[in-house]
């Protein structure tokens, strides 16, 4: 149980989360969406674990799905519908997250859950089919889409009012949102953090989820614990129920949580060492060191994830990924961990190939696809692969941190940010492949079966990318202390 939860929770232990949510959102309860979050959290979680049991919240959403224009409608309608939902998502993030810094981490998990019902369900199939469509007819479609996006975002703009900076971001990247669900989720998530940071100066220093009260591993651990509790309840109440793939539990199984925690320990220690060094310095030396540290900090905030590249590249078996990883890691002695990562990626690629292979043949084989690979199987494979790849990525960062600390070698932040980009790209690419796989396997399924699964994959992929980026941020104090120690050594000589 986290510190932040312990201080906030006053009611029965079972519902610390909704407690937190309501206490977090009361300060600016003026937004109409705010009460929604608190009440919605629990049912939404349930809906994700067990798509077959319908809560009232989800039923409501499903009816909205039916009101959506049919798939055959023009692209402009689709994107407009989509934008409305994006808009409300952004708003939810802000109303939850600005309340207090301490609850940002939790606010975000709620947002992610929330996003599933409020924006995900109507569009994921459309998104993923459209990815394929667009790739085929990229040229002529783009002008249409751009126009449509202009409409949609201005509508959202007025609805969101104060969020002008977010809307402008959205306007600029409109096309990306439609072509790739994950990129959009991730991109908007990242920009939202910036917006939050602008409105809250105290937050800026601890960009990402890294504030003292809710560490990333705590957020993840709580997610895992909820899943475990749920699985335990399911096991005892109904043994026949299909066990749904739980990202958090799988992430822990691959020791992702432990590596993350160890990385956090090292990061925190380094941070306090840096601070204590700074307090011992004065005058020019202090100014000089501050400048040097700012330089390191800059390389950590400059990282941009360019999702344009992701569509271009086709890495069928993961060899391209392996090459990029070993390129990025040259000079850091973490080859065995990097090998594990490449293996994970290759195995994911192999699974995708196995699952999509029958589809390459003629129409008749459509039947085979349905029989041999169920949508649940594809979904489980996708979640498992994402969890494993993320866990291995965190492990890699942890090992890199240990190597930097003990070898005291000079490691460029640029190398690490390059690594982060490669990892996030891979996550994005995998999620796209898996969702096309899902769409193919579920062509005969009803939307209310398929959509939550596709949404689930996109959301966990988006989570994965944020975890990786946050883990990257944890490396900053480690590079700082390493730099300090190296310069101390050189002056001694």
């Amino acid at each position, binding site marked *: 149980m986290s510190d932040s939860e312990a201080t906030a929770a006053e009611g029965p232990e079972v519902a610390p989360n909704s407690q937190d949510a309501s206490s977090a959102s009361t300060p600016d309860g003026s937004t109409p969406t705010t009460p929604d979050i608190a009440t919605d959290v629990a049912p939404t979680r349930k809906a994700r674990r067990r798509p077959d049991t319908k809560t009232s919240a989800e039923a409501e959403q499903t009816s909205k799905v039916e009101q959506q224009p049919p798939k055959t409608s023009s692209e402009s309608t689709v994107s407009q519908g989509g934008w409305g939902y994006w808009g409300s998502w952004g708003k939810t993030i802000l109303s939850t997250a600005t309340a207090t810094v301490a609850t940002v981490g939790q606010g975000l998990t709620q947002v992610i859950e929330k996003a599933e019902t409020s924006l995900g369900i109507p569009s994921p199939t459309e998104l993923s089919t459209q990815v394929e469509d667009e790739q085929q007819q990229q040229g002529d479609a783009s002008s249409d889409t751009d126009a449509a996006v202009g409409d949609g975002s201005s509508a959202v703009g007025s609805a969101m009012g104060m969020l002008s900076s977010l809307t402008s971001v959205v306007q600029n990247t409109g096309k990306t949102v439609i072509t790739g669900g994950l990129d959009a989720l991730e991109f908007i998530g990242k920009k939202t953090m910036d917006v939050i940071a602008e409105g809250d100066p105290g937050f800026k220093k601890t960009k990402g989820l890294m504030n003292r009260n809710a560490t990333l591993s705590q957020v993840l651990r709580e997610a895992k614990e909820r899943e*475990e509790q749920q*699985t*335990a309840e399911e096991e005892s109440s109904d043994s026949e129920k299909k066990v749904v793939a739980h990202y958090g539990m799988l992430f822990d199984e691959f*020791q992702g949580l432990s590596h993350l*925690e*160890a990385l956090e320990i090292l990061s925190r220690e380094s941070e306090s060492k840096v601070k204590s060094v700074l307090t011992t310095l004065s005058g020019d030396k202090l100014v000089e060191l501050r400048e040097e540290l700012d330089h390191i900090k800059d390389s950590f905030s400059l990282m941009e994830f360019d999702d344009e590249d992701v569509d271009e590249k086709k890495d069928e078996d993961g060899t391209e990924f392996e090459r990029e990883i070993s390129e990025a890691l040259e000079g850091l002695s*973490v080859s065995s961990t990097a090998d594990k990562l490449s293996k994970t990626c290759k195995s994911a690629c192999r699974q995708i190939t196995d699952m999509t292979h029958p589809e390459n043949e003629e129409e008749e084989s459509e039947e085979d696809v349905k029989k041999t690979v169920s949508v649940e199987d594809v979904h489980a494979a996708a979640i498992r692969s994402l969890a494993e790849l993320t866990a291995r990525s965190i492990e890699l960062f942890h*090992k890199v941190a*240990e190597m930097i600390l*003990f070898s005291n070698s000079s490691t460029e932040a640029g190398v690490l940010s390059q690594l982060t980009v490669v990892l996030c790209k891979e996550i994005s690419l995998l999620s796209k492949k898996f969702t096309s796989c899902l769409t193919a396997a579920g062509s005969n399924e009803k939307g209310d079966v398929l959509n939550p699964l596709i949404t689930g994959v996109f959301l966990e992929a988006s989570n994965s990318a944020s975890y990786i980026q946050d883990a990257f941020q944890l490396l900053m104090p480690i590079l700082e202390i390493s730099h300090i120690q190296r310069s101390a050594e050189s002056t001694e000589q």
Partner: protein
Amino acid sequence: METIWLYQFRLIVIGDSTVGKSCLIRRFTEGRFAQVSDPTVGVDFFSRLVEIEPGKRIKLQIWDTAGQERFRSITRAYYRNSVGGLLLFDITNRRSFQNVHNWLEEAQSHVQPHSIVFLLVGHKCDLEAQRQVTQQEAEKLAAAYGMRYVETSARDAINVEKAFVELTRTIFDLVRSGDIKIQDGWEGVKSGFVPNTVHSSEEVTKGSRQCFC
């Protein structure tokens, strides 16, 4: 996937380089013995469920630390969140036995303000012919520090289960008696989820309601 467990204990495994820490853990968690293995860098992680009483399962999360001196500054950071530990020495390597004292001091000073339950393990007991440390002197040392002593072999799978289960049971008793408490912000002991909370809801919630902020 087995998800029902009463508690999770975090254990740390320490001792000189090459005494066989990783091999012992791998034998315990994976049931196999690797003839060749790379030296551990920093820390690695393993986990396994142990059933200490019928229906009472404990999840062990094992932190496998690097024994090499050059990693010491890093591994020190990892002690704090462990409730128990295996302190290994190699019975064919007298020096590793003499270092037991240093390891204990090192651990005690970095685990503050918490305490940690250690089990002394004389490893590689299959190599009887090369033995440099007698069982009697090891037992004496263990007793002096209030530890139990077990001799194990990862290669021949001797006493591997016993070492982990015994430590787990000791910790479990201390948790049950209230000598070790679950605390927020400390990862040493975590309570798990028990369906139909018949037998243990009290013990599980007892500690976790306390606030140490």
